[in-house]
């Protein structure tokens, strides 16, 4: 189901409906129904993004009366005179490219464990999914900050196990970013449920046939499970990548909005927030927002393009 939905997600144009259009049914009804979205799109998305492009070429402080045109100076500053900008870019890529694969691997491994029929599957599902629904919450980020604090649970457990503790996880630039990555990985529930749905669609005959051919556990995974699951992996990958590039709350709470230590938690959205809403450099923040838009668009396009080489659609073979 999901496989097809994501690829061919577009309204159905049934023959019946097409006939009606030919008969000249007016189009007003359709537009009236989608009007709320259309109006919302122009008012809150399209026009703001267009305005953002104009602002990106200005020097604008919300307290000053008018934006002041400065050409490409914002971009110049961003790319060549703002070391913190590059730090935020680097840390965001670092975060996205570590947390997303880890999260997906976790999600897939657990989904596979849970396909085996056993009692209380519903309970397990709840246990694994719960962290995801509460995960985006400030309360969880606050709690996470304490768990990894100098006198937090992680250190207490390490001490109890006789391992060296009292490392400042959050104060040490080498480990701080990993606490946020751990939080992201902990929220693996939704991709896991999607994997679960995908695994259920793999016909049992394929596994039986593979077993008869003498395929071991590993071969069954690499030859059957993985290829048939690639559309779902692809879907999860795209969605999680975009989430990865827009992570805000956890980094903001854990670093108190500063991005410290040594800006290792200064993810792109957090830096954008600092520029726009702390320093009120709206023009600069708008320029940053546009670069983010371009990067996310390029990245998504790249993943889609690459899918031709590794995503396998059983339907096309048939």
């Amino acid at each position, binding site marked *: 189901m999901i496989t097809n939905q994501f690829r061919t*997600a*577009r*309204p159905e144009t049934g023959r019946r409906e097409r006939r009606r*259009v030919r008969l000249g049914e007016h189009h007003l*009804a*359709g537009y*009236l*129904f989608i009007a*709320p*979205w*259309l109006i*919302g*799109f122009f*008012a809150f*998305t399209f026009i*703001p*993004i267009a*305005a953002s492009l104009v*602002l990106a070429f200005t020097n604008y402080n*919300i307290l000053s009366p008018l934006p002041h045109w400065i050409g490409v100076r914002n971009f110049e500053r961003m790319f060549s005179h703002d070391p913190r900008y590059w730090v935020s870019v680097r840390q965001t890529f670092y975060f996205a490219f570590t947390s997303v694969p880890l999260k997906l691997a976790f999600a897939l491994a657990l989904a596979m*464990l849970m396909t085996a029929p056993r009692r209380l599957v519903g309970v*397990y*599902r*709840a*246990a694994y*999914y719960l*962290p995801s*629904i*509460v995960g*985006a919450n*400030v*309360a969880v980020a*606050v*709690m996470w900050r*304490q*768990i990894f604090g100098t006198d937090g*649970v992680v250190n*207490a*457990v390490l001490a109890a196990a006789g391992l060296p503790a009292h490392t400042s996880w959050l104060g040490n630039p080498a480990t701080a970013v990993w606490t946020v990555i751990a939080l992201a990985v*902990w929220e693996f529930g*939704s*991709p896991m*449920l999607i994997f*679960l*749905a995908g695994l259920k669609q793999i016909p049992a005959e394929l596994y039986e046939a593979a077993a008869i051919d003498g395929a071991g556990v590993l071969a069954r995974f690499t030859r059957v499970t993985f290829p048939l699951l690639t559309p779902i992996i692809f879907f999860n990958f795209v969605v*999680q990548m*975009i989430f990865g*590039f*827009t992570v*805000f*709350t956890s980094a*903001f*709470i854990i670093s*108190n909005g500063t991005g410290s230590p040594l800006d290792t938690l200064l993810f*792109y*959205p957090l830096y954008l*927030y600092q520029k726009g*809403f702390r320093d009120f450099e709206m023009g600069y923040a708008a320029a940053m*927002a546009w670069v983010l838009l371009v990067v*996310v668009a390029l990245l998504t396009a790249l993943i889609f393009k690459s899918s031709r080489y590794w995503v396998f659609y059983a339907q096309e073979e048939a």
Partner: protein
Amino acid sequence: MIGFGLVMLYPLIWLVASSFKGPSEIWTNVSSLIPKIPTPENYVRGWAGFGSVTFATFYKNSFLYAGIGTILTVGSSAVVAFGFARTQFVGRQFWFGVMMSTLLLPVQVQIIPQYIVFTKLGWLNTFLPLLLPRFGGQAFFIFMIMQFIRGIPAELDDAAAIDGCGKVGIFFRVILPLITPVLVAAAIFSFYFTWGDFFSPLIYLNDPKLYTISVALRAFADPAGATDWGAIFAMSALSLVPVFVIFVLFQRYLVQGISTTGLRG
């Protein structure tokens, strides 16, 4: 499996346990889940809030924001979803494509000009900037509801049309009663997203009287003062209560909603 499940749930259990620990115990007895002397005093101190604003106010604000926001989002998403799924008009494919691509759009990209406009309109410190954009529905929910509508046989529409029902009649009398399950799922998700929303309340609400729980918790944990962790744990645990209650009551719908569209982070 059970062990791993417990590890996953451990942080949440720890949070609740810690919220009942007294000040002498909260850092000395970190790894124990059972408070030696359970006490509700953290809840009392936490509920008092800060300044003259109690957590009752933050709770009320969060419920207002999440409640009204959810009704607006799901209501308009259902209407728009019907438009895309069941009416025919020139440009439908195009607008559908545009709508789906907004799913990939980072919030940060539109926030600057939106903020400027809402500020110039004098809407800072009101709920208008948070609620108004919800009249348009949200691509995520529109798509989710659409997928569901597409599973309903078109013959029902035709039968209603023969009986003299217009598109509006078909929507209200045929489709709406049939899509209740997906509307419930969408409402739960929308409530969760809004309840946990941090970015928008953070930038638009500066008056403590208007704070939602998420912003209040953050203000509570401000490093400027001596942080009262016991109270923060207590209020964090309380802020998760609606999330848990809804989860327990509607788990079935959630799993269904996730596995049919599954876009949640």
